[in-house]
């Protein structure tokens, strides 16, 4: 037990699924295990709302199975912004700041999600800077990609959350 740190960390199927997400793809098995210890599991039924537009955002959602539709109200009409597949994540801006959600997320299939609470992420940045910077870099790349897409297409902010 005392020399357990010498053993390589085994990757469970759940850790493999986390590794497949762009957010955690750069983490080592040990780092993934630490992050997994902080994630909460949630299950949503088809049509169930994950969060509303304008709600205070406190967490990032990582889609493990099922599909989620992101939509927002634009001039009184519901505008579909994106539909996310397993491995995708949303609510990422809530991880960086405390601003309200700027779109609604609704399950369009029964979904299983891993939820990363903002305070846990900030705590991780303090206690484990390496994991913190890897996740922050992945988030920055994700937001940068969105920005490039928006500049290229002139469309409103994709997956804006």
């Amino acid at each position: 037990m005392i020399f357990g740190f010498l053993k390589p960390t085994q990757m469970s199927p759940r850790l493999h699924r986390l590794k497949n997400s762009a957010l955690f793809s750069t983490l080592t098995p040990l780092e993934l295990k630490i992050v997994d210890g902080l994630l909460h599991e949630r299950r949503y039924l088809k049509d169930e709302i994950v969060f509303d537009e304008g709600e205070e955002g406190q967490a990032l959602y990582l889609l493990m199975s099922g599909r989620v539709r992101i939509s927002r109200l634009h001039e009184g009409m519901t505008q579909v912004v994106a539909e996310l597949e397993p491995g995708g994540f949303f609510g990422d801006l809530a991880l960086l700041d405390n601003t309200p959600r700027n779109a609604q997320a609704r399950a369009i299939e029964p979904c299983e999600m891993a939820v990363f609470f903002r305070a846990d992420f900030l705590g991780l940045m303090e206690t484990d800077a390496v994991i913190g910077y890897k996740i922050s870099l992945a988030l920055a790349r994700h937001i940068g990609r969105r920005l490039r897409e928006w500049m290229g297409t002139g469309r409103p902010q994709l997956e804006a959350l």
Partner: protein
Amino acid sequence: MNNGERAGPVVWTGIIAATCLLLLVVKQLLWLALPFIFGTVLHYILLGPMQRMVRAGYGRNAAALLVCLLFFALASLALAAALSWNDGPEEESWEKTIGLYLDGGVAFVHNTMTLLEARFPVLAEMHLTSSVNKAFRTYTDNFAQEHLGEILVGVATWIPSLLLAPFLTFFFLRDGLRFKRFLARAVPNAYFERSLYLLHEVDQTARRYFEGLLKLTVLDTAVLALGLWTIGVSSPLLLGLISAVLAWVPFVGSVAGCVLVVIVASTDAPSNPFVAYGAIGVFVLVRLLDDFVFMPLTLGRSLRVHPLVTVLMIFVGGALAGVVGLMLVLPLLGVVMVIGETLGRLVTNPRLRARHRYARALRTRQASVDLDIARERRGAPTPNAEQAAK
């Protein structure tokens, strides 16, 4: 989370009522309350080192165990060093040492009374010294019959329950995160994010309070030890530490700490009562510094409660649960306040309640997808039953 939205009078009445109720429960479960407090304090001290060990590749079990073992080994060594490093009066046995210090305390009271009578003749006319001596004698003569048995039974009851503290610390460290996830799992999806925030705030409130208390103890110990060392009292660091820990209990703890310091000072210099007066001066100075400088810097920031409510609740805590009530009323009030304010916001949010009702309806519909309840009530066979019959 929007903190600008403050709770109303109904929520605050509930918060105060819940705090009082918890204090009464604590009073009944005193044997568990103290080890629980020590366990919580140690958990917050050891959490950082344990997280570093987990990061180094240790399992949570091994990391919690190693951190606890290391801490208790170091604490035992420090205690042994403090006990052996004694520059006070030497005696053959600890019973004699205790007797010596008690005699020193009694002699200090006697000398002070004599000095006061010499300075103020009106006190001599009132026979102050003989009255105090009589009261002392009455108390000490009956001490063995009236109190010694109670004290010994109390010690025999408390020592096993205090041994719970290391076990609680270990399990708090190992399973704290798991317990938080377990609690969060019970929350419906609609309230999930806000409940996570609530759990986090409760944890932060308790952590801020106990970390503040630890910082305050370190500051008090250092300043008191410096003051006592300056006037030449023996074992200043150990005395400072004991007094600072006793000060965890508002009012009563400070008085007990002061009495302890005076007893040691008067025993160290029996012929010079001014050392003991100096010790009282140092103690009062440290208490003033503590109340007006250290406490606002440490504990004051931990609980965002109005000062008037804080003072009133300390009295209520003392009246309801005695010394432990005095000690626990503020952290309990802080935690109940966070829970009450957040729950108040959750249950009064119409959109969250509507979402929760909708999710429940979805679950009911999913659970009864192949069940025609109306048809069943009419007594007609359900489609599944018809299919089975075919």
